[in-house]
């Protein structure tokens, strides 16, 4: 098994190639790899439209009335107290998923982040090992891991009970590759070793060094890791479904049978939320630091 080098998030895209002056000016370049502007635009519009079609279909579907025609009724129904019992499972699932977001982000911040900083500062030889461990969940499919999670959780539920929040440990593992990448990219771009030594030589203790030097320099990587982890938790279905816990996704699948409109409405909202989170990461990522290289 080899370490996977796949770029997993927008943040990891390499440094951009020098933009061609000709391409920028909108004229078609006569050499090199860049396409002419019309070619680009045509390809992007066609494929973009095809990708927007299912999203548009979801929006239209969510306004479709049972009797034919269109209505905003399905959106109002969500807040209708008379129908509360119908959506009870969904709201429980959303609650559980939000709790899982907090727990999983905590796992990333409390377990993964310190070990990444420690390895960077004091055990650089272990960097490959840590990378291998963190990227392993890509090679081992979730549906395979679940086969092993079932016996682990049958023991764990005797210790901690079988509440939904315990899933956070398993989902944290699934989130490892996604959370590891942005922090690793950030660590590679900041010379934390020199920064730490400078601070230490000026008399700072380890805690102030961590809190006031290292963490602020890793802000963007940490923020990206947290957002991506939230997106992973909100989209996670496999583990919750096999372990029989109610989360946002398993509740969506259940309610899809009784009220497909509400399932589609909440899917849309979740997709938009994830998109906005990643858009923020993307904008943070494209504001590149002026230093080095």
């Amino acid at each position, binding site marked *: 098994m080899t370490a996977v080098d796949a770029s997993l998030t927008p943040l990891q895209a390499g440094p951009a190639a020098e933009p061609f002056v000709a391409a920028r000016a909108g004229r078609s370049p006569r050499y090199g790899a860049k396409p002419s502007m019309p070619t680009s635009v045509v390809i992007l519009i066609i494929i973009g439209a095809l990708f927007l079609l299912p999203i548009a279909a979801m929006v239209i579907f969510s306004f479709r009335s049972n009797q034919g025609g269109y209505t905003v009724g399905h959106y109002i129904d969500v807040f209708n107290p008379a129908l509360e019992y119908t959506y009870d499972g969904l709201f429980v699932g959303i609650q559980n998923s939000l709790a899982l977001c907090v727990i999983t982000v905590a796992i990333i911040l409390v377990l993964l982040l310190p070990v990444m900083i420690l390895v960077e500062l004091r055990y650089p030889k272990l960097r490959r090992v840590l990378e291998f461990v963190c990227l392993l969940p890509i090679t081992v499919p979730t549906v395979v891991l679940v086969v092993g999670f079932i016996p*682990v959780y049958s023991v764990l539920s005797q210790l901690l009970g079988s509440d939904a929040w315990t899933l956070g440990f398993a989902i944290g593992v699934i989130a490892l590759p996604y959370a590891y990448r942005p922090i690793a990219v950030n660590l590679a771009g900041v010379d934390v070793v020199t920064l730490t030594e400078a601070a230490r030589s000026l008399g700072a203790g380890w805690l102030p060094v961590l809190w006031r030097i290292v963490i602020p320099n890793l802000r963007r990587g940490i923020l990206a890791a947290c957002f991506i982890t939230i997106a992973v938790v909100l989209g996670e279905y496999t583990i919750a479904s096999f372990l029989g816990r109610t989360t946002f996704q398993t509740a969506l699948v259940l309610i899809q049978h009784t009220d497909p409109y509400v399932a589609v409405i909440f899917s849309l909202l979740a997709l938009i939320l994830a998109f906005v989170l990643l858009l923020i990461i993307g904008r943070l990522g494209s504001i590149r630091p002026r230093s080095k290289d």
Partner: protein
Amino acid sequence: MTALASNHGAGATPRRRGARPPRRPGTGWIGLIPFSVYAILFLGIPAVLAIASGFFTSAGAFTISNFSAFGDPVILKDLVGSLGLSAASAILGAVIGALVCYAMLGMNPDGWLRTIVDSASSVLAQFGGVMLAFAFIATVGNQGLIIVIAKQLFGDSALSSPIYTVPGLTLVYLYFEIPLMVLTFMPALEALKPAWGEAVATLGGSRWTYWRQVGFPILAPAFFGCMILLFANAFSSFATAAALISQGGIWPLDIQRALTSETVVGHENEAGVIALGMIVVMVVLMSAYGVLQRRAARWGS
């Protein structure tokens, strides 16, 4: 753990002129423990259990007879289904995704369009799962937009949706395979040096010469590497298929069936057997990916 512990002090700062060294060299490895314990409990043990469970009967005795499952025509048919679905969605996804990357090359790499495409790709490629299935039910499902329009146009009320079958899943899978290709292949395309294009032009080559002699050969390892990654991604994905198909037909759904149904004697721990099979396929794929990735990195800098 011993491997981790024996390495302690390797990167410790040599000078300790700080007024109060709070930690003596050699105790830092304690900081590695919490994450190691977590990784062992929730990654190591489940992975080993998943692989090992195929070697045991439900009573706990060691056996290899469970592996007769690989002779089961249903399991074999579903393996073919899984591989076919993965191959079709990987090849189509790679070609279309590469086309999108090519088009994006003409856009400002720091521009808003690029950020939007990146973020949308990331959402669709990694977090869609069940929700993508719903999107396709609303589009080409039995009551979906396109099917309803088609029924009105052709007056054929018997028209049924293809997405509830394994071959039909290819269409749905493309919706996360193409974005994954965009995410993984874009860096390789961006790494093409403008100087190479200038060199070809100086020597009198056309753009077609550039692509044939320079672009395609250099990008080939990265392209096929990404294609393998897409294959692996389709092969291991579960949620989208589970939300659309109820009767099995690919290996991830077989694991679900094996875990939720009564075990048949002689087919005990079938989930573990299929899990092992999936791991073998994934390890082969990821090794091939690693080789191609190293070849691709040759032109990196």
